[in-house]
């Protein structure tokens, strides 16, 4: 039945809608447009790992313990969270260790059920806490850095931005989007040139090695472009 739904012409419609259609059918009960959904907690993280090239695709094995703010287990139950290292930090979210009395905060913030009861339908919310995860969780800052490194593989600024944009959204940016991201890049570049040490600090977020041969100031500026893209509505929503 799922297959029937997802392969149907109805499901495969674009999710864009005219103002008139939105007014007539705000909740898409008549199915005149395609679905528009926020990605699930697992997808949000897996996507960031995949586009950054960090994703470890190993199948199976015991659960892993990726990044988690310190002290969360300690303050509730007096037990230490022994964070993993290396590939354990980049496995699919499916393999993340789940302690029900203190579940991974970056996941339950994105409406992952806490596994106390069966849930037929997940909630999909937009909250300030989700914004803070995507902006500041080392997992996403590190992923941004790796996306930025991939962007720097292109010659011109325009190509770099077009590549990053396409990587995350699956389409090319239009001129106004390119302009917004170029301005963002230029502003960040200016700030980081004043303080290359800060650029370096930002890049050192996360445990993965820094690739050699990249200019830290440009790299940091593009890290912020990539970080913005990870928070872009079109990236964490399915269209």
């Amino acid at each position: 039945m799922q297959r029937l739904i997802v392969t149907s012409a109805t499901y495969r419609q674009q999710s864009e809608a005219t103002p008139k259609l939105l007014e007539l059918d705000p909740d898409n009960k008549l199915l005149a447009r395609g679905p528009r959904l926020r990605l699930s907690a697992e997808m949000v993280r897996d996507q960031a790992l995949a586009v950054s090239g960090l994703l470890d695709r190993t199948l199976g094995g015991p659960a892993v313990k990726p990044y988690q703010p310190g002290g969360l287990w300690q303050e509730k139950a007096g037990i230490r969270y022994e964070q993993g290292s290396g590939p354990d930090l980049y496995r699919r979210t499916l393999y993340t260790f789940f302690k029900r009395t203190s579940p991974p905060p970056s996941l339950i913030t994105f409406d992952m059920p806490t596994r106390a009861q069966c849930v037929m339908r997940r909630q999909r919310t937009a909250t300030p806490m989700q914004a803070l995860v995507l902006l500041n969780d080392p997992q996403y800052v590190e992923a941004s850095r790796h996306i930025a490194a991939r962007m720097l593989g292109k010659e011109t600024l325009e190509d770099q931005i077009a590549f990053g944009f396409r990587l995350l959204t699956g389409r090319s940016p239009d001129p106004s989007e390119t302009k917004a991201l170029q301005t963002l890049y230029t502003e960040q570049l200016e700030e980081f040139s004043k303080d290359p040490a800060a650029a370096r600090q930002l890049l050192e977020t996360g445990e993965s090695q820094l690739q050699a041969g990249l200019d830290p100031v440009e790299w940091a500026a593009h890290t912020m472009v990539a970080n913005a893209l990870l928070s872009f509505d079109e990236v964490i929503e399915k269209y």
Partner: protein
Amino acid sequence: MSDPFYDAGCCMNRRHFFSKLSLGIGGAALAFLMGCAQTSDQLAAGSAFRGILNSPHIAPKARRIIYLFQSGGPSQLELFDYKPTLQQRRGQDLPESIRMGQRLTDMTAYQNSLPLAPSLNSFAQHGNSGAWISDLLPYTSKIADELCIVRSMYTEAINHDPAITFFQTGSQQPGRPSMGAWLSYGLGSSNEDLPTFCVLLSRGLQRPQPIYSRLWGNGFLAALHQGVQFRAGGDPVLYLNNPPGLNTGDRRSMLKHLARLNEMHYDVTGDPEIQSRIAQYEMAYRMQTSVPDVTDLSDEPEATFELYGEAARTPGTYAANCLLARRLAERDVRFIQLYHMGWDQHSNLPSDIALQCKDTDQPSAALVTDLKQRGLLDDTLVIWGGEFGRTNYSQGTLTETNYGRDHHPRCFTIWMAGGGIKPGLTYGATDDLGYNITQNPVHVHDFQATILYLLGIEHERLTFRHQGRRYRLTDVHGHVVQDLLT
């Protein structure tokens, strides 16, 4: 501050709309895949969100709650429930005529005898109301006339996890939304800069019973209604701080262009959810300022620390959390939930409970006093209490100077103050041995119904459809205890 719940003229939101639809499972699956069952509560205007209730069911008497949860089960017999008769019966076995088949925990069920253990503490009457309070609580005694002391609370659970879960979610089984989440869902946010439901943890000196983050979870409600834990240390809220090397200006610039990008996307799709997301990023940015602002105590005068005690200077203590609770209340946070762990005195009760009281008595009383001085007590409800009480008999050997007490669900004491609660009232009574309730029993669901009532909600009318039926905090139980209300 603007409070949508108190401002009339709210429109119906999407969940409200959907709650009126009855979808079969296939229909729900289709709706899920087609994205027409989005349940974000956000309306596009502003980041303060509206609740499901358009207007109060009844006139609210409280706008916010500070719940000082004393985790572990404080002994009512040492603190509030004075039982001189126990002195005369000291060491005698608990009569079956009193126990009446009450199940005991495994910790005392196999004990050879259940020797009645009177408290070593002395009690006196305090204030004009003449409330009985023990010498362990000198500061609380001074605010006796502000308090409504309920000595006839009872619960159904006998172990910590189910008992706390029952108190906070209305069910012993995990998975239901907690009280703060229900209020967020029902009433919406009262604040543009801070979360609606804030949680603060602290622990006593001994190794306490653990606590679980699902206690402040959203259960089957949206994650938007989750309690947000404030923590002592570098990141007062998880992921609040920018990564190293990134300053506020850089972040501002990045968010400005991100908003621009999202706005362009909105122009194409016209989806109001995008505006909601933009607003959430704005709020996240404001929280980066407002949270450190509320947790930074450097602007508090000396008098504050005289009132709450020196411990209030140390982040993460109960005293510091009580002070933080007042600061959050001043900023109109709706539900401020404290947990203080360490009340589980199975053994060494006389010495350990004294330590617990030393940590909690002064700050709890200071909070009530402070709120009153600032005119906030009128519309802030303060609740003090644990998940159950303790037995009138000793767990382990009863000696001249030492004893322990096991968990006791049949009677225990909590107190409330402020927002619509009758001050200077001692409510309910237990028998001479302090084992059963003899007058005005208050069940956990009655307590919950009363709390909702004070906030303007009829507990039977705040529901959420889940797994084929409507759920509510009080499930299918609960009566408002009118006797406690002003």
